[in-house]
């Protein structure tokens, strides 16, 4: 029970959102921009951030009566300027065959000029705006659904919500419209929210509606995790830039991906909802605290901080599944030698090599100077053929291994330079917080890029991610 309350401390609630984040960080100017889609569109355009193109706006009844409906294209979206929660949006996909004054909606319903007229009238009356304040209407281009998202979304277009605070993207989710949400990407109305790993732009966990955890799209075998969102870095860049220019310290950017144009900013939200925490199974408060007070000077820096701090959950998942840790093709590791001597080095993870080898100088620093000196005194065998190597190895082992306590084995290898003889010593490797005892070959690697290569024998507890 105590743990329950301690854990819940990481979640952002309505009270904390309003008092600690919206009130102090979101200025009036920014709020105005977030509340007016047209103003937002204008400011975004001025700062060369992509937004859906404006077709026409209708400000009052005179303009409505004088409006030439023939100027409308075959497909468009009609929106109230100050609508919220996706209410009052009307989208048509094509003209009704053989008619200039009628269009078709996604569900096949026919929308006539009279319908548009009545809808705009309702918008004027404030039917879709906060507190019923009078509003204006506008037409904008209809975004085209990306092929990748087609199987996942019902009728409407999915969008990506990115929460940005202090120029750092802190959490993101993909919202998929469903039958229940009537094609709207709105969780309150039953859409699907899918958490996104910030580092890779790959989806993780998912919820439907008010917080039911799901793995598949209901009624299908479509897995919701592991979807790789295209243009991910561009989406993060646009969100951070939108936050910087809007003057909203705490912002939810809604971004859609158009089939032709790529990512476009749909709208900016000054009061982003809290369900994103459910979709990601993660607390926002925790994350916001970690980035507050950081001095982030550039967009790139902000993106990098967000990706580093709030990514990598997928990796953890793989680690959990396989019981193995994921490391990169080069890793900072620690070598632990005699009497606990430690050296930190950059090592090459080489799955092509059988065993691990370290540079002679490193071995000396680790306290193996004595055994190396002794090794120098051992006479090298005359060149033999490969068949005799095994016999030779056994012979040398028997003769010299007991001669020095630090000498674990003597190995012979053929290389371009002919036969070479190398000593093996025993040290410990500390790789990604795991300590592994290892017999390593000592070689002169002074002329090579990495003083240490880690071979297969010592990599059994790891998976190597070459992109890391």
């Amino acid at each position: 029970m105590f743990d329950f309350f301690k854990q819940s401390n990481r979640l952002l609630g309505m009270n904390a959102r309003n008092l600690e984040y919206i009130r102090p960080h979101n200025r009036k100017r920014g709020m105005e921009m977030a509340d007016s889609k047209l103003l937002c569109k204008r400011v975004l355009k001025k700062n060369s951030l992509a937004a859906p193109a404006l077709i026409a706006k209708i400000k009052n009844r005179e303009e409505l009566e004088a409006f030439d409906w023939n100027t409308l294209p075959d497909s468009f979206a009609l929106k109230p300027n100050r609508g919220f929660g996706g209410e009052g949006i009307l989208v048509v996909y094509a003209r009704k065959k053989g008619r200039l004054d009628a269009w078709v909606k996604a569900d096949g319903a026919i929308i006539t000029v009279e319908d548009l007229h009545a809808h705009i009238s309702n918008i004027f009356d404030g039917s879709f705006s906060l507190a019923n304040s009078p509003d204006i209407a506008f037409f904008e281009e209809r975004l085209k659904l990306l092929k990748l998202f087609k199987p996942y979304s019902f009728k409407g277009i999915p969008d990506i919500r990115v929460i940005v605070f202090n120029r750092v993207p802190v959490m993101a989710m993909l919202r998929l419209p469903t039958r229940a949400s009537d094609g709207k990407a709105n969780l309150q109305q039953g859409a699907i929210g899918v958490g996104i790993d910030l580092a890779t732009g790959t989806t993780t966990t998912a919820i439907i509606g008010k917080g039911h955890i799901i793995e598949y799209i209901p009624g299908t075998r479509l897995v919701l995790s592991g979807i790789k969102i295209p243009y991910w870095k561009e989406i993060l860049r646009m969100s951070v830039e939108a936050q910087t220019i809007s003057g909203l310290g705490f912002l939810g950017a809604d971004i859609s991906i158009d089939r032709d144009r790529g990512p476009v900013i749909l709208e900016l939200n000054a009061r982003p909802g809290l369900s994103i925490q459910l979709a990601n199974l993660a607390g926002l408060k925790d994350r916001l605290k970690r980035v507050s007070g950081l001095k982030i000077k550039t967009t790139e820096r902000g993106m990098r901080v967000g990706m580093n701090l709030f990514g990598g959950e997928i990796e953890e998942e793989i680690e959990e599944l396989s019981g193995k840790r994921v490391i990169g093709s080069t890793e900072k590791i620690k070598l632990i030698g005699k009497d606990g001597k430690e050296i930190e080095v950059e090592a090459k993870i080489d799955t092509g090599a059988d065993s691990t080898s370290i540079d002679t100088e490193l071995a000396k620093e680790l306290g193996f100077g004595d055994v190396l000196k002794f090794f120098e005194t051992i006479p090298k065998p005359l060149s033999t053929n490969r068949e005799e190597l095994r016999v030779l190895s056994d012979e040398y082992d028997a003769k010299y291994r007991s001669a020095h306590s630090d000498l674990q084995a003597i190995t012979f290898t053929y290389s371009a330079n002919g036969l070479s003889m190398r000593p093996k010593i025993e040290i410990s490797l500390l790789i990604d917080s795991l300590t592994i005892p290892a017999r390593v070959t000592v070689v002169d690697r002074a002329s090579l890029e990495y003083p240490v290569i880690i071979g297969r024998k010592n990599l059994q507890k790891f998976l190597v991610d070459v992109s890391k």
Partner: protein
Amino acid sequence: MQYHPLINFIVASGVPLQTVALLLMLPIVVTLVAFFRQVIGIKAFGIYTPSIITFALLAFDPNGIKYGIAIFIAVIVVGTLSRLLMKKFRLLYLPRVAITVSIVSLAILFILVIGGMTQRTGLAAVSIFPLLIMITQAEKYIATQIEKGSRVALILALETLIISVVGYFLISWHALTTLILQYPWIILFTFVINFSLGKWTGLRVTEYLRFRKIIRHLQ
């Protein structure tokens, strides 16, 4: 009963005791509404609606709860039905609300007549102002329906009713009324309470419920 000298003075200058008691109760009711919102997470229709409904319920006494709730629910049901009815006519907002409110008031009149005919004189004799308050809630309800959908509107209406009923029991609690008339300065405590509510950043009870499924997944 011994009232505070200040109360005696106010009553002596011609203000009815009931008015004094109700005005002193109002801070408590609004504090209750604020508490429900910030700590429990029950939203209702703002602060005005639950407070006014609380007092309307009180005005329905001696059968405040029974008739009050019945009328409230009648308003919601009739309001919803007439909205569904009006939907296909595609009327502009205000005329549409005007028609709905009219239908609701006629329905309430009908209910009163039924009440009178079935010898429930308590219902038929209810004074007009609490009735008006209830009927005009229909507008708030319809506006919410349009803005946030029928489900949300229904939930908010029920939440309003819950807060109002709790408020009703609070202000019709005799001991509390007596206490306040004896020590009116304890009203000042509501300021302290509201101040701390205004700075309260903890999760609301409803948020604990909402997030309960993911709390154990957090690491």
